[in-house]
């Protein structure tokens, strides 16, 4: 078996966590859910930090917990970023990192000290003690530390919550790269739809201690009955190949099944695959194609289904572009005016800028 099998049942006062699932042991699994839904508890159980009698935990071919058997935390090849500050207060930032490096799995030194320190922007802080660091700085050191132990599974509990947008946008692609290049599976807890969109391959939605939805990101996100209120962040995620780069205008072209889309050039070479996100709020519908607007992407699409959004004035419209599916959010009034119905064809207008990495 190659997945991460989790089966557990835990009662804590009036909180009941009941999980029986198998997560993919590659790529990023994002655990999503409201505050208090049990995300941290699940992650801790997986790591072995929570002692849950009768639980079964399995990582790839190793049984981590079953009946009497219990692999102690320090023998599990994982890295863990805690939700709250967890640096050793008696060690400087550097010594915190060294603590991990010394105990790392020497056979797989794939994560490089220099590179990670540089990326997380902590080079100047290494001689400070945790008490001399800002909240975000502490968190960045903690992330570096979890990576330097060279884990085979990375567990991260809202690692970027205390970081600013700019910093997040620097770290996210790096995590992405780790996932791809090092084949390092991650289980990642977050509240942030942006992080979901960016990283997730597999999504698990927790509510009151139970999994209410799970599946591959693309499928899960475009389901209109998707049980979490992604709100402003509803949309679709597509994987597609870069087919052209226009250096002059700073644009790249990707091919999707229904045609092509321009998006701002991210330096990705022609022929590579990128993940793009199309927010529902950035898709508008037009009866005819317009080329006198600043919206440069216009693509023919067929309405699959409509569903009321969580606000009465808005509708979510699922659109088929050959093989791919995207979602548009439009006002109920427009649906009425344009007569949006399943089977009808429109031009989906997508602002190039709405495409994420």
């Amino acid at each position, binding site marked *: 078996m190659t997945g991460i099998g989790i089966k557990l049942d835990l009662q804590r006062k009036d909180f009941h966590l009941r999980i029986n699932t198998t997560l993919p042991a590659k790529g990023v699994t994002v655990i999503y859910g409201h505050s208090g839904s049990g995300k941290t508890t699940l992650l801790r159980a997986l790591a072995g*930090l929570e002692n849950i009698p009768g639980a079964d935990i399995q990582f790839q071919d190793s049984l981590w917990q079953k009946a009497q058997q219990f692999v102690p935390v320090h023998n599990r090849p994982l890295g863990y970023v805690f939700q709250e500050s967890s640096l050793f207060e008696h060690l400087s930032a550097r010594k915190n990192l060294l603590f991990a490096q010394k105990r*790392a799995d020497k056979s797989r030194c794939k994560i490089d000290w220099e590179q990670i320190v540089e990326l997380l922007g902590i080079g100047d802080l290494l001689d400070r*003690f945790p008490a*001399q660091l800002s909240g975000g700085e502490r968190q960045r050191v903690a992330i570096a530390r979890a990576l330097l*132990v060279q884990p085979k599974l990375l567990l991260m509990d809202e690692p970027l919550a205390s970081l600013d947008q700019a910093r997040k946008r620097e770290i996210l692609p790096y995590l992405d790269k780790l996932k791809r290049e090092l084949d390092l599976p991650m289980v990642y807890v977050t509240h942030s739809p942006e992080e979901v969109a960016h990283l997730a391959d597999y999504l698990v939605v927790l509510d009151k201690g139970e999994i209410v939805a799970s599946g591959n990101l693309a499928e899960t996100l475009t389901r209109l009955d998707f049980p979490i209120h992604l709100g402003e962040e509803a949309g679709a995620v597509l994987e597609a190949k870069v087919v052209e780069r226009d250096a002059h205008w700073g644009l790249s072209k990707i091919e999707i099944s229904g045609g092509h889309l321009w998006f701002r050039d991210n330096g990705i070479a022609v022929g590579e695959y990128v993940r793009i996100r199309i927010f529902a709020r950035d898709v508008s519908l037009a009866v005819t194609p317009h080329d006198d607007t600043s919206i440069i992407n216009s693509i023919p699409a067929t309405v699959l289904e409509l569903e009321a959004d969580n606000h009465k004035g808005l509708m979510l419209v699922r659109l088929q572009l050959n093989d791919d599916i995207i979602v548009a959010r439009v006002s109920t009034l427009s649906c009425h005016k344009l007569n949006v119905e399943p089977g009808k064809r429109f031009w989906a207008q997508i602002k190039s800028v709405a495409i994420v990495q």
Partner: protein
Amino acid sequence: MELFSTEDLQAILLTLKLATVVTCVLIIIGTPLAWWLVNTQSRWKSFVSALVALPLVLPPSVIGFYLLLAMAPDGPIGHFTTQLGLGTLAFTFPGLVLASVVYSLPFVVQPIHNAIDALGKRPLEVAATLRAGPWDTFFNVVLPLAAPGFITAAVLGFAHTVGEFGVVLMIGGNIPGVTRVVSVQIYDHVEALDYGRAHILSLTMIIFSLLVLAALYSIGKPSAHKLSRS
């Protein structure tokens, strides 16, 4: 008259040896005991804690008296050691060590217990996720983080062994070079009305101890991580 007689010097050396050995033994015994007390959910916890503190409430010479009875050939400890072929422990250095350990145990267990307790579980969890096994975690995380507690334990244990004499008097038999420690020596000087020698020896002890203790406390001084906000 020289500052110290040969006997005084002998007593000083013996005292240092005894206190060092006892402190080591105390830390070695006290640490796991404190650890157990912190982590156990046992109903006996309070009872064991109380038991550890018990030697405190009896006068040292009375403890010494009971230990003497226990170490006699037909006493429980004496029976046991004789079985092992060790003979009896009274009037021997190991006997002194044993008695001092019993007597000073609470001073060592308490501070370590409190220090470990105050750490909480988080540092242990973090260490485990960084692949540190139990021993590794103990030496590289618990020990440095709980350092003030261990230093206090060592100071109290050491100092108390140095100063303690009721038990030593009872168990030791005042044999020069074997069981005649400084505290007994000073006591003897006072009892023998040889106040001059008593003053010199006491002063020496005080100055020496002040230096050692001050040095110890400087080691345990808060480092950068304590000085600023936490």
